[in-house]
C-alpha cells in the first residue's frame, strides 16, 4: 500500500497527492525544520522536496528499503544541498539550544520502516560519543567542524567517530536485511 502511493505519484495520479502528504508530510517537515537555517527556508525546502519525491517516485524499489527511508533520502539530499548554498547564514537554533533526539525504540515500536528500526537498533550498540556525533551531524545538520568546536574535540576525532559509527550502522543494516531476506527465501 505504501509503495503504491509512490507508484501512483509516479504515474501522475493526482488523487495520490493527498495520500502522499498524509504519509510523508510530517516526516519531511520535521527533517526540513531540523536541517534549515530559517522557518521560511524550511517551507521552501519542503516544497522542493515534494516535487523531488514526485519526480523520483518511479525509482522507488521496495526491495532496497522502506518508502519512508527512500523519502528521507530524497529530503536529505535537497536539504544538504540547500545548507551548502547557505553556508554563511546562521542556523535557525543556536547550537546550545539543540533539542535532544527522541530515538524510536525498535523493541517497542515495530517500525513501519524496517530499515529505520534496524538503524535505531544499531545506534543503541554504538559508543555514546559515536552516537552523539552522528546525532549532531545527521539530525541537527552540524558540520564536522561545528561538531568539533561544540564538543571541544579535534576534527580528526570527529571524523573518526562519525566514520566508525556510520559504518557500523551500515554493516548492521546490511546484516539484518540479508538475514530477513534469507529467512524469507528459506
Amino acid at each position, binding site marked *: 500500500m505504501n509503495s503504491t502511493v509512490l507508484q501512483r505519484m509516479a504515474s501522475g495520479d493526482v488523487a495520490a497527492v493527498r495520500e502522499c502528504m498524509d504519509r510523508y508530510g510530517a516526516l*519531511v517537515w520535521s527533517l526540513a525544520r531540523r536541517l534549515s537555517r530559517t522557518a521560511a527556508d524550511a517551507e521552501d525546502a519542503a516544497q522542493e522536496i515534494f516535487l523531488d519525491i514526485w519526480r523520483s517516485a518511479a525509482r522507488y524499489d521496495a526491495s532496497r528499503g522502506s518508502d519512508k527511508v527512500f523519502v528521507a533520502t530524497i529530503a536529505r539530499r535537497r536539504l544538504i544541498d540547500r545548507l551548502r548554498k547557505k553556508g554563511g547564514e546562521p542556523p535557525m537554533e543556536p547550537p546550545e539550544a539543540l533539542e535532544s533526539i527522541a530515538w524510536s525504540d525498535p523493541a517497542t515500536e515495530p517500525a513501519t520502516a524496517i530499515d529505520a528500526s534496524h538503524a535505531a537498533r544499531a545506534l543503541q550498540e554504538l559508543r555514546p560519543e559515536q552516537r552523539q556525533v552522528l546525532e549532531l551531524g545527521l539530525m541537527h545538520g552540524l558540520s564536522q567542524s561545528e561538531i568539533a568546536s561544540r564538543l571541544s574535540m579535534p576534527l580528526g576525532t570527529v571524523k573518526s567517530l562519525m566514520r566508525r559509527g556510520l559504518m557500523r550502522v551500515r554493516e548492521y543494516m546490511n546484516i539484518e536485511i540479508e538475514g530477513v531476506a534469507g529467512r524469507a527465501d528459506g
Partner: protein
Amino acid sequence: MAETGPQKEPDEAMLDLLIKQVSEGLSPEEQRELDVLDNEVASAYARDLEHAAAAISVAGTGEPEPMPQALRARIEAQLEAAMAASAASGAAARNAHSSTVRSIGAAPRPQSRSTAGWWAAAACLVLAVLGWLRAPLGQGPGTAPTPAQQLNALLAQPGILQIQLDMTAEPAAAGAKADVVWDPRTQQGVMRFVGLKPNDPAQHQYQLWIFDGDRDQRYPVDGGVFNVPPTAGQVVVPIHAKLPVQAAKAFAVTIEKPGGVVVSGLEHVVAIGKAG
C-alpha cells in the same frame, strides 16, 4: 538494503569524503577529489551510507511535527498543478491585448530560479487554466477570458469588492495608481495599475498578496507574480490566489526576487489597500 555490500573496501580518505557527502555535502574541490577515486567502490558505498544516514534520520524523527496546514495546502496545489502540467503538454500562455487596456497574465517565474520556482510557474499556469475552465465567466466553452474581459465580467457581479490601493514611497510606485476588484464568491479578481514602473524580470518581479482575515496576518496568501512591460499604460493583472481566501481584508503588491517568494518580508511594498 537487500543488496550485498560491495566486496572491495574503500580507503579511509574515500570513506571520509563519502561520509562528509552524506552528512553535510562536499565542496566542489572535494567532489572533484572523490570523482577521481575508484568510482565503482565509491558509488556502492555512497548508496549504502546515504541509506544508513536516511534510516537514522527516520529513526530519530520519533513523533514527527505535523506540517502547517497552509504549507500543506500550498504543496498539494503545487504538486497537483505540476502533475497536471506534466500530463498536459503544450499548454499555451494566454496574453491578450485590447486597444485600450494592456492585459497581462500572471508572469511565468524565470527558469533561473530553483526548480521549485520553475514548477511553481507551471503550477500557476495550470491552476489559472483550470480556474478559467471551471468558472468561465460567461465565455464560450474552452475560451479563456483575457484579464480585461475578466474585469468587465467581475464588475457586473453582485457583491464584489472594489478597493483603491494607496501607493507607497517606493520609487517604483511614484505617480502610479492602482485598484482591486475581487469577487469573494468565485475567488477571482484583478488588479489595475496605471504608471507602475516597468520591471526587469531578471532583476525582480512584482508579487500580489491577499491578507485573509481567517489567516495569520504574517502570512498573506500569494496572489501570483507579474511584470510591467516598458510600454504598458494601464495594466490589468489577474489575481491567482494560491489558497482559498475566506475574508479578504487587504491587498498588497511587493517587489520580490525573480520568481517571487513563498513568504514575503514585505520590505518593498509598492501598494496596499484595505477592504471596507
